């Protein structure tokens, strides 16, 4: 046994291990510098786009090609930068939430409170549409009411950060906030309505007869480094997958911006009473990436389409998709699927009408 040091009194208090502290300082400085650079670049984007379009490519300001190209050069880096920042932030935020924790929070909650919680949690809980079925089964068998589960399943894909970022970047914070607010309201009310309809019998029988081992999945204690890694992975996965659609969508938007005459959209996607239902019905079987569709939405709005009609179209495309319906058919009987599509579809239509009226 070594002669102990316990009798030695250090003359000065022990300093913290120098490596850990200086590393934290380095990371913090790097992060601040990164954010600073990001902002500096962001504010220069329009001037850079103008330079590229009018000086480098010597296009005419005001010409169709000129305006289209300017739109493209400005919006593409702007949206990609916003996307990277927000996806990173949300990735870190999501590391605090797991479906298992969400399930624990929601199990056994009363319907109205549960619907609100579920819709909110749908935004921050990581959700992959391929997990929709295991998640549905897991929730329902753990005692989360059917309507509450639906609130979660509606809000999760619809109120997604990519859509919100793009709406904010291309249309401003008001439209983004509107989308967020109405998306949540639809998720809450549609889920609540479905719950009231007492359609538990319309869950496929094998689901209700299932024996689920409520397995004790180890709850991760993540360090901050791991959380930041989560953000980085999210950027790599999401932006890596989505950037091409963003660029394509902006290109389409640029084309519409430069070449479609003003007011044409007002006739196709205007405020007539039939415009909203048609937009929703056309949107339901379509499935597009949020990333690709928002730039198109922006261009449509810029050409005179009515906000309510366009929002309704966008929500119908994102929230209700044929692939998701096919997947859900494994656990839901046809009537329940029809009710799901119907209730959400009507909710979206109501939102569309509302905005056409008040804006």
């Amino acid at each position, binding site marked *: 046994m070594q002669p102990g040091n316990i009798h030695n009194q250090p003359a000065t208090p022990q300093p913290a291990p120098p490596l850990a502290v200086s590393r934290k300082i380095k990371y913090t400085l790097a992060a601040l510098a990164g954010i600073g650079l990001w902002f500096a670049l962001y504010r220069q984007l329009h001037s850079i786009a103008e330079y590229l379009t009018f000086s480098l490519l010597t296009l005419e300001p005001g010409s169709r090609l000129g305006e289209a190209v300017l739109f493209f050069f400005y919006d593409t880096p702007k949206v990609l930068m916003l996307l990277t920042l927000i996806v990173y932030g949300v990735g870190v935020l999501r590391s605090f939430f797991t479906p298992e924790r969400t399930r624990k929070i929601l199990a056994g909650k009363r319907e109205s409170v549960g619907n609100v919680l579920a819709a909110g949690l749908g935004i921050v809980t990581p959700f992959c549409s391929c*997990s929709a*079925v295991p998640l549905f089964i*897991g929730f329902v068998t753990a005692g989360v009411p059917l309507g509450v589960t639906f609130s979660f399943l509606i809000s999760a894909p619809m109120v997604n950060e990519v859509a919100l970022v793009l709406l904010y970047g291309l249309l401003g914070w008001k439209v983004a906030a509107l989308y967020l607010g109405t998306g949540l309201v639809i998720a809450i009310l549609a889920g609540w309505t479905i719950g009231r309809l007492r359609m538990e019998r319309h869950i496929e029988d*094998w*689901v209700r007869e*299932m024996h689920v081992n409520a397995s004790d999945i180890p709850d991760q204690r993540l360090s901050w480094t791991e959380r930041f890694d989560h953000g980085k992975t999210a950027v790599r996965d999401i932006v890596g997958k989505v950037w091409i659609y963003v660029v394509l969508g902006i290109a389409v938007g640029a084309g519409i911006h430069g070449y479609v005459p003003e007011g044409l959209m007002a006739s196709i996607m205007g405020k007539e009473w039939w415009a909203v239902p048609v937009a929703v019905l056309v949107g339901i079987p379509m499935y597009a990436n949020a990333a690709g569709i928002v730039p198109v939405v922006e261009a449509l709005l810029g050409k005179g389409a009515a906000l309510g009609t366009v929002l309704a179209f966008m929500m119908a495309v994102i929230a209700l998709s044929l692939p998701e319906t096919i997947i859900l058919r*494994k656990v839901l009987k046809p009537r329940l699927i029809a009710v799901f599509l119907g209730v959400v579809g009507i909710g979206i239509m109501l939102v569309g009408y509302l905005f056409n009226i008040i804006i």
Partner: protein
Amino acid sequence: MEMDIDIKILGPGCKKCGQVAEMVRQVIEEHGFPAQIEEIAGLDKIAEYGVLSTPAVVIGGDVKCSGRVPERHEILQWLRKYQGTPE
């Protein structure tokens, strides 16, 4: 006689699930673990394990992780722990 470690990878077939299966295979080969990997894609079977998100890794009947792609060193850790060898 030593029994093979029973490993199941749960996932309906999206890209991440394939990634996880490949990773586990590599770790097993590199370190010579005797193991049987089964990839389960049937949603009903997946739900029986109580997992809420895929891909998920089950070793010896215990769910080790779900909803993400684990790190190699985690997979190694789980396998070693299962065998009872020091991590």
